[in-house]
C-alpha cells in the first residue's frame, strides 16, 4: 500500500520508472504522475534527510534532502567526489551521527529519535563497519579483534569466542586467529575487519572504501568475499570512488553537492570470482 509520504504532491517529485533492466530515480520539479513501487521489507528507509554542521562561522548544508530505500539483500555502491556528502551520509547510515532533520528507519526502528546509548546498541547489533584503514586494535590478536563487538553485546565469553571463530572461518582466516595485525597482510587485516563486522549477525554491512589501501588483486579478493556474503542475503552498502569497484555492486547511487544525482542498477555486472580468475597471480 502506498506510503502517504512517498506519493506525489510534494515540491520535488520523485519519479520511479521500473523496467526490465533498471530502476531509475530522477528528481525533477515538474509533476510526474507515475506508479510507485512498494518498498516491501525495506531494511533502510531514508526520508528527506538534511544535515547541517557548523564549520567555524559558516553553516555547511552537507545533505540537502536525501530520500532512498534500501531493501534487504541489496548491494549498493555509493559514489561521489569529496564534499559530495557521501561520508556524511554514511555516518548517518551507520548511526554514528543523527540527521538534522528528516527520518531514518532501520529495520522498522526510527533511528533518528534514539539516544546515544541506544544508537550504540544499534551499531552493535544491526550494523557492521568495514573501514578503509582496517581499524583493528593493534595489540590484540585477530580472534580478540573479532570478538570485540560481542563484549558489548552482553553475550557470554564462550559464546563470543564461538561466534568469533565462526566469523573468522567465514573469511577463511581460522588458522590466523592468534596472529596480531602487524603479522597479517593488508588483505588479511581487512578480512579480519569483515569478520568483526559480521560477528553479531548484523542486518547491514557498511564498507567505507574497503579496498582503498589494497592492491588490485587483493581488492578483488575482498570484493569477492563481500559478494559471497551478499549472495547469502547480507545487505551491503559500499562507498567507493573507484568506478571499477562500483561495478561489482548491484546498484550505484551517485552523490553530488549533498543530493542524490543518480541512482541506477548496474548493467552487465561482473562477479568478483570471474575477475579473479582472469587476474594474473602475483609472484612473491
Amino acid at each position, binding site marked *: 500500500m502506498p506510503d502517504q509520504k512517498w506519493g506525489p504532491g510534494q515540491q520535488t517529485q520523485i519519479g520511479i520508472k521500473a523496467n526490465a533492466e533498471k530502476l531509475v530515480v530522477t528528481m525533477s520539479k515538474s509533476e510526474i504522475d507515475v506508479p510507485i513501487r512498494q518498498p516491501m521489507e525495506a531494511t533502510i528507509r531514508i526520508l528527506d534527510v538534511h544535515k547541517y554542521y557548523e564549520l567555524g562561522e559558516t553553516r555547511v548544508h552537507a545533505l540537502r534532502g536525501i530520500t532512498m530505500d534500501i531493501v534487504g539483500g541489496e548491494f549498493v555502491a555509493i559514489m561521489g567526489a569529496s564534499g559530495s556528502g557521501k561520508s556524511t551520509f554514511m*555516518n548517518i547510515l*551507520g548511526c*554514528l*551521527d543523527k540527521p538534522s532533520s528528516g527520518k531514518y528507519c532501520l529495520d522498522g526502528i526510527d533511528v533518528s529519535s534514539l539516544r*546515544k*546509548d541506544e544508537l*550504540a*546498541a544499534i*551499531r*552493535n*547489533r544491526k550494523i557492521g*563497519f568495514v*573501514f578503509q584503514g582496517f*581499524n583493528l*586494535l593493534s*595489540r590484540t590478536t585477530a580472534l580478540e579483534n573479532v570478538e*570485540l*563487538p560481542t*563484549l*558489548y*553485546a*552482553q553475550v557470554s*565469553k564462550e559464546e563470543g569466542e564461538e561466534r568469533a571463530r565462526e566469523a573468522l572461518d567465514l573469511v577463511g582466516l581460522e588458522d590466523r586467529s592468534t596472529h596480531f595485525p602487524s603479522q597479517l597482510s593488508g588483505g588479511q587485516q581487512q578480512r579480519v575487519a569483515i569478520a*568483526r563486522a559480521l560477528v*553479531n549477525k548484523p542486518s547491514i554491512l557498511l564498507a567505507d572504501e574497503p579496498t582503498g589501501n589494497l592492491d588490485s588483486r587483493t581488492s578483488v579478493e575482498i570484493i569477492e568475499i563481500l559478494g559471497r556474503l551478499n549472495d547469502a542475503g547480507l545487505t551491503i552498502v559500499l562507498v567507493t570512488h573507484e568506478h571499477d569497484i562500483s561495478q561489482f555492486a548491484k546498484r550505484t547511487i551517485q552523490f553530488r553537492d549533498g543530493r542524490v544525482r543518480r541512482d541506477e542498477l548496474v548493467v552487465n555486472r561482473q562477479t568478483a570470482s570471474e575477475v579473479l580468475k582472469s587476474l594474473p597471480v602475483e609472484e612473491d
Partner: protein
Amino acid sequence: MDLIAVARIAVRALARNKMRSTLTMLGIIIGVGAVIAMVGVGQGAQQQVQQQIAAMGSNILFVGSGTVTRGGTHMGWGATKTLIYADMLAILRECPAVKAAAPGSNTSTQVVFGNDNWATRINGTEPQYFDIRNWPFQEGSAFTQQDVEMAANVAVIGESVRKNLFAATDPLGQTIRIKSLPFKIVGVLAQKGTSAAMGDDQDDVVLVPITTLQKKITGQDWLRWIMVSASSRQASYAAQEQITSLLRDRHRIRAGQDDDFMVRNLADMADLADQAGGVMTMLLASIASVSLIVGGIGIMNIMLVSVTERTREIGIRMAIGATERNVQSQFLTEAVVLSLIGGAIGIVFGMGASYLITKALGWVVLISPLAVVTAVVFSMTMGIFFGFYPARKAAHLNPIEALRYE
C-alpha cells in the same frame, strides 16, 4: 560486561606499557608505603607509652613539688621547698584511697668505680618505692627500712649504670663512690628501657636511702616528689582529690591561690600521652598523605595522555557499539586497577620500611590491619577520583572525529 572481565581487560591494557604503568604507580606506592610506615611508627610509640605506664601500675600518682610551669605532659617542677616527709606520713594517714607512698629527692653527680666514672642521677627513696613502681631486681634486692633509719651507705643501680661502670664484673657487693663517699651495692635493677612518656633513660639511675641522700649528699631536707599508689584505678581519682586538698591545707594555701605542688594521676598521663601520640600519628599520616595525592595526580596525568593516544581505539570501540558508559568504565577501571596494585605494593613497601626503621632506630613499629585496610580503600578512592576526569573525557569523544584521529 561483568566486573572480572572488565578488570582483566584493564590489566591487559596496562600491561601493554609496563614501564609507564610502573612509573605511574610509583606515586601511589610511595604514598601508601609512607602512610603505613608513619602510622606504624606513631602507633608503635603509643603502644610503648601505654605498655610502660601499664607496667608501672595504673593506680600510681606522682606528687611533685613546685608548680607546673608548663601544661600537660611535660613535668617541669620548680624548686619549692614545701614538700616534706611529714606530708607523706599525713597522706598515708589521712587519705583513705591511698595504699602506699614513697618519698623522693634527687641530684645529679658523678659515680666512681675504680678508675671509671659515670655521671648519673642519684635518687633517694625508701624500699616501698620499688613495689609501687613495679620494678623487679635482676640481682640482689632493695635496701631495707633499717638502712633508711640508719642512713646507711648502700645503693641500688640501674642497668645502664651497670653496663657503663661494671661491664663484665658483678656489681653486687662492690663499692662505688658518690661525692667521695663509699656506697655498697646491694641490688641491680632489671632493665626498663627508655621512658616513652618522658624520653629519658630509666635505667640510668642510682638509688640510695632518702635519709642518706638528704643528710650526706644534698644536705636538703625537703622532698622533690612523693610516689603514691592508690588502692585501685578507680580510687586513684579520689586519691588525687584527697591528696590535693590535704596538701593545700597543710601548706596553708588559700582559695584562689595556685598549688605549690602538683599531683599527676598516671591514668591521666596515660590518656594524655595517648592523645598526644594520636595527634602525632595523625600529623605523620597527613604529611605522608600528601605524597599519596601527588600519586593520584600522576595517575590522572597519565590517564589523560593514554586517552589522547588511544583516541582512534576509542572511536573504533564506539563504532562497534561501546556506549559512553562502556568507555568510561573501561578507563576508570584502568585507573582503579593502577591504584589498587600500587596500593598493594605500597603496603609491602611500607612494611619493609617499618622493618628497616625498627632495625635501624630501635623504635617499635606497629602495623595494624586497620591501617592496611584504610590504605587500600584510600588508594582505590584515589583511583576513582583521579581517574574520573580522564574517563569522562574519553566517553565524551565524538566517534566520527575519533576515527579520523591520526
